[in-house]
């Protein structure tokens, strides 16, 4: 079929149908992608391969379909950004699988989450004791976020009234022997300083360093490269 209009209509129909199907299937199917992003990625990969597999199909058909998908995705994200209700209708709302320490069985059934799966998800987040969980929120992208009860939360420096010091973001200065000049500049250091730091750690050539990071406060992580056999 070499019709641009038909390709556009077909793509729109498939996009809408897939979106609806995935919406009905629920968040569990999504992983970490937004609903429309997942539909686009599934469809785009397939659509792109068709004219490549069959040279008898004009390339413009594949391109038109992909461009249509791209436009629909942009329109949809624009509309959902503007209209909150549309966003909720299409992508749903975060669900509390556990609220105030209690399992919300209705939400569990609605999202087809079994008790075993909930425990598995909690274990993945390092939680083994259910009494430590205050909230477990199933986000619209399918991830489960866990908020612990105050007694189970890690102690913070603020709670202990310790002096708060931010060492800053650790910049990668050498990665696999390559000097990251941009990061070095952001840190306000020079090549000479970097070589001096390497030499002081027994490595003469930065090319022999596997990984080196440094924070603005001066904390340095240094991993020399292993000798290649």
């Amino acid at each position, binding site marked *: 079929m070499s*019709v641009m209009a038909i390709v*556009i209509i077909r793509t729109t129909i498939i996009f809408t149908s897939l979106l609806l199907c995935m919406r009905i299937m629920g968040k569990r199917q999504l992983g970490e992608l937004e609903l429309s992003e997942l539909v686009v990625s599934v469809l785009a990969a397939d659509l792109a391969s068709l004219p490549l597999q069959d040279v008898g199909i*004009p*390339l*413009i058909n594949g391109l*038109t379909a992909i461009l*249509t998908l791209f436009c629909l995705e*942009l329109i949809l994200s*624009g509309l959902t*950004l503007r209209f909150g209700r549309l966003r909720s209708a299409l992508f749903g709302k975060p669900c509390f699988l556990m609220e105030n320490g209690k399992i919300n069985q209705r939400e569990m059934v609605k999202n087809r989450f079994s008790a075993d799966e909930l425990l598995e998800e909690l274990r993945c987040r390092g939680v083994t004791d259910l009494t430590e969980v205050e909230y477990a929120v199933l986000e619209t992208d399918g991830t489960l976020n866990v908020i612990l009860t105050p007694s189970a939360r890690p102690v913070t420096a603020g709670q202990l009234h310790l002096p708060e010091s931010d060492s800053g973001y650790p910049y990668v200065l050498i990665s696999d022997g390559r000097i990251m000049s941009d990061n070095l500049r952001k840190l306000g250091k020079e090549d000479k300083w970097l070589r001096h730091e390497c030499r002081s750690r027994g490595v003469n050539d930065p090319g022999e360093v596997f990984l080196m990071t440094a924070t603005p406060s001066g904390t340095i992580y240094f991993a020399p490269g292993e000798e290649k056999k």
Partner: protein
Amino acid sequence: MKKALLAGLLLAMMLGASFWNIRHLDVFTDELEKLVLCSMEEAGNGDGQKARETLQTALERWNGSETYIQVFIRHSEADAVSDGFYDVFYALDNGDENVDAAYEKLLFHIRGIDSMEHITLKSVF
């Protein structure tokens, strides 16, 4: 929202281009069909030479749009039309009794290209 509007505009432009494509193909296939029908009539009147010349004009028109055809029309359909032309030439040159059938086959392929371009429930689904 600006991006969404631009995407909407792009989608509208693509739809517009597709309708232009339908119109262009309508005119193109109508022209071809008329030439082939004229050639068929001339062959029916026993004027083989005239029929051949008219068919040659139609073939030149078809070959003249080669780039457009290769870009927008499924290659198997385009090949069927090209083969159809050569089948009619062969039938005319050899005084074949089935020349009318060869003409009908060519017309069927030309009309097929045009009908596929039109938006109907059948073509969408």
